């Protein structure tokens, strides 16, 4: 390896290339690639262009296309004449955002190859005209295999903000007026982790309950959250029993640790976990833990949220 002399942009380009190699193989492959590259350079300092030429001329497919894409090089026409890279004639509505979102499901190193292919299909569907949302949707439905298909469709559904389809179904199957609202809000919170405005508005409209009343309900009952919580929600029991047994210290310990590590965890307190007999207890995402179990669970979520 000592016989390689790098020019700054050469080193940079090579690093970029290495980043595109799947992580598991990176260490193993690096010496080989360096050896190949050294051969190509034949003693000359390695520039960015040299790396690119080497990728283009010496590497076998499919690595060649993938790495070329990773380096931002245009796929060459002679290799895959069928892959048109023509730009879209135009986009309608959210089509462009949807197209990009669809590509996000493709692994990094293959994305640019797929972009060309899929763009071609989209153009075909649009028959030269601007690409519409429906065109992208039909591509996903017809061509993309699962589980990517499900992921993409789900993402599309929440693109405008919040996916209210479940709530809509639930409202339809819940007859009654205002007496059903608290139950619906519980369902909303179970789905989203909080009560987003869009969902509250929908309940307000369908159940004919003014938004002012909705807001008052949301704030007079302690169960509901109006802000999106962190990755995990930890509820610390602050019952009198826990207080007498030092529940305050546990709360402080958790808060301090979050402040220190910046973990994405929301801390709440509750007087009525109903487990004062195993106090101090905590509830993590709806499950109750106490003592040793509580400490182990905290350890786990902190390591996940860093």
């Amino acid at each position, binding site marked *: 390896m000592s016989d390689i002399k790098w020019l700054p942009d050469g080193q940079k380009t090579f690093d970029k290339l290495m980043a595109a190699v799947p*992580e*598991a193989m990176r*260490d193993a492959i690096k010496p080989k690639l360096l050896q190949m590259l050294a051969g190509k350079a034949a003693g000359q300092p390695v520039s960015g262009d040299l790396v690119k030429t080497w990728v283009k001329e010496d590497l076998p497919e499919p690595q060649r296309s993938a790495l070329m894409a990773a380096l931002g090089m245009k796929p060459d026409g002679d290799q895959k004449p069928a892959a048109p890279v023509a730009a879209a004639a135009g986009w309608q509505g959210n089509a462009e955002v949807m197209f990009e979102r669809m590509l996000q499901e493709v692994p990094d190193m293959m994305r640019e190859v797929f972009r060309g292919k899929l763009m071609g299909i989209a153009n075909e569907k649009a028959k030269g005209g601007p690409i519409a949302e429906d065109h992208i949707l039909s591509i996903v439905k017809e061509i993309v295999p699962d589980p990517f298909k499900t992921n993409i469709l789900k993402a599309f559904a929440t693109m405008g903000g919040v996916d209210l389809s479940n709530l809509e179904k639930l409202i339809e199957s819940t007859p009654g*007026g*205002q*007496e*059903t*609202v*608290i*139950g619906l*809000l*519980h369902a909303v919170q179970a789905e989203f982790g909080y009560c987003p405005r869009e969902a509250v508005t929908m309940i307000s409209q369908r159940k004919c*309950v003014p938004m002012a009343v909705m807001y*008052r*309900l949301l704030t*007079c*009952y*302690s*169960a*509901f959250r109006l802000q999106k919580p962190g990755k995990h929600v930890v509820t610390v029991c*602050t*019952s*009198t*029993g826990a*207080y*007498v*047994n030092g529940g305050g210290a546990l709360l402080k310990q958790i808060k301090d640790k979050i402040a220190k590590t910046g973990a994405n965890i929301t801390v709440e307190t*509750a*007087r*009525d*976990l*109903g*487990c*004062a*007999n*195993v*106090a101090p*207890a905590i*509830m993590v995402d*709806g*499950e*109750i*833990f*106490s*003592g040793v*179990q*509580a400490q*182990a669970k905290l*350890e*786990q979520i902190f*390591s996940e949220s860093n």
Partner: protein
Amino acid sequence: MADIKWLPDGQETFDKVIAAVPEGMRAAMKPKLIEMLAAKAGGKKISRKIVEAWVKEDLPEPQRSVLMAALGLDRPAAKADAAAVKKAAWKVKGAVKNAADLAKMKAAGQELLAPKTLRITVSSASCGLAKGAETVAAALQDAVKKQKVNADVVLVGSNGMSWAEPMVSVIKAGKPCIVYGNVTADAAAGIVKAAAAGKIVEDLALMRVDSIKVDVTGEKIKYAADKAPAAALAKVKDGSKIDFFKKQLKIVSRNAGIIAPDRIEEYIGLGGYQALAKALGSMKPADVIKEVKESKLRGRGGAGFPAGIKWEACSKAAGDKKYIVCNGSEGDPEIGLHKSFLESDPHMLIEGMLLAGYAVGADEGYVYLNDRYVLAVERVQTAIEQAEKVGLLGKNILGSGFSFTLKVKRGGGAYVCGEETALLNALEGSFAEPRPRPPLPVHQGLNGKPTVVNNLETLSTVSAIVLKGGKWFAGIGTPASKGTKIVALSGNVARPCWVEVAMGTVIGDIITAFAGGTASGKKVKAFQTGGPSGGILPASQLKLKLDYDALGKAGSLLGSGGLLVMDEDCDVVDVARFLTEFFLEESCGKCTPCREGVKRLNEIVSCIADGRGTKAQLALVKTMGEAMSAACFCALGKTAAAPILTVMKHFPKDVNGKMLKTIN
């Protein structure tokens, strides 16, 4: 590195370990880890097992937990199994159309409770689950499968011994039931092995149980024959002879911890729905009310209003639509006893509500539960579905023409919902605020119709009263308070637990006999009954009896049965501050004396608790307490000053210690 020989699965597992190491450190760590691993292997080829054992045994925390999680060794794997235990939902067979069907199901239930094959139960109410019951259940399930033992692993409720959770019981017909306490997942395989061989794991065994009561009439299921216990059993205490059970009188909670809450057959096996059959078969609604009146059963929620009188008023109220509402709001920050009870035996409540419905002529009921009681909601829901399936809820129950539907509603979380009219508001989807009365709920309650609102313990007591008679129930307890009461002990106690004792039991005895005194071993300084609204009483009052009137006279209340113990080191003034803060958070704001009162009260009490008190403040607290108890709209505001007022009365030394030295 050359000296390491890998087996394919070992290499694979090790790669997983490496992948879990943060990328930046991976290259640096790898040689070290391999070196450690090689030492562990000692020249052998490295298999998956060696890598796993190495991670589990040799690595320091927190890396250990992280890597165990990455390899799926710890909780995650067990969790999947636990979910499987839960998911294997119990399917009820058969229908109960008449008394004969009920008898048949009773026999089936008893077969489940004392089967010829092995039955292993895990106590998994919330307090058990919090201490890892789910993992234990999964480990037991796993051991049963691996050891090829024919056994039924069942999730049951809690028997009250919260300090010994999670508990595991091993039952087989003809042998005494062995109860193990503080069981961990590691002990599961040993327990299954011993159980299959008819042996006992002695260090974990808490007690043995020779028989269980079928119902309040005295019928029993015997596990073992009457002969003297075998030698192996000699060291294990007889459950009926240890104080914890000997001193209790279990009526409402008699099934808790024995039956599976999600199997209606087991409830019926222990005499469930017999009271309903009796009432529907041979009693008029007025007879049921007469029995309940005779029993002198008083509301278990707080106020202690006689249930029979409430029912009678509702039955006489005009209207064709009536409701029964179960108050399970229990927002008290001290307890959770009703939750444990409900998670253990939801059918007892359903039967009580059916009886109430029959007595007052209601055909619809609601169970209102606190929003945090997610598991209780689930279990009551399952119980309702099963009762509907067999025909004990719905139309024409037991062929009597009586129909009743029941729904469970999860609240939004507000302490004031324990007040019955605020609860009705919450049920109607409105704000948690009390309503003016009159009209009383028995005249105009839910949706403006006559409604009985009872605490869930009150309703659960009714089936025993109907079955054995009001006179029997009235024979237990004190002149003013009849029957039994579930009491939950928390705070600074050696063994937190919940127990059911006869009314009139001395409070000091409850603390020593069941909870084993204070955890610190110091003297009891103070105790509080009845949740935050109760007074904080000194140790000299420990001779008080569990009785509505006696506690009321002492400036406290029985409430829903919380008993909080504080030892000598406890700063009672600070506890009073904590409780006023609670009222500040929970005041609904409807009436001015409460809304403004609790705010001001909290300011003053905080100031005193911080050691900056003045005599003028103490005088003001007294005046405010009187004013609030006279002017506030509901009991929340009326009793908000009780903790600080009782502290001032009974602990003058503590309060004086908090006075500002300069101006007093």
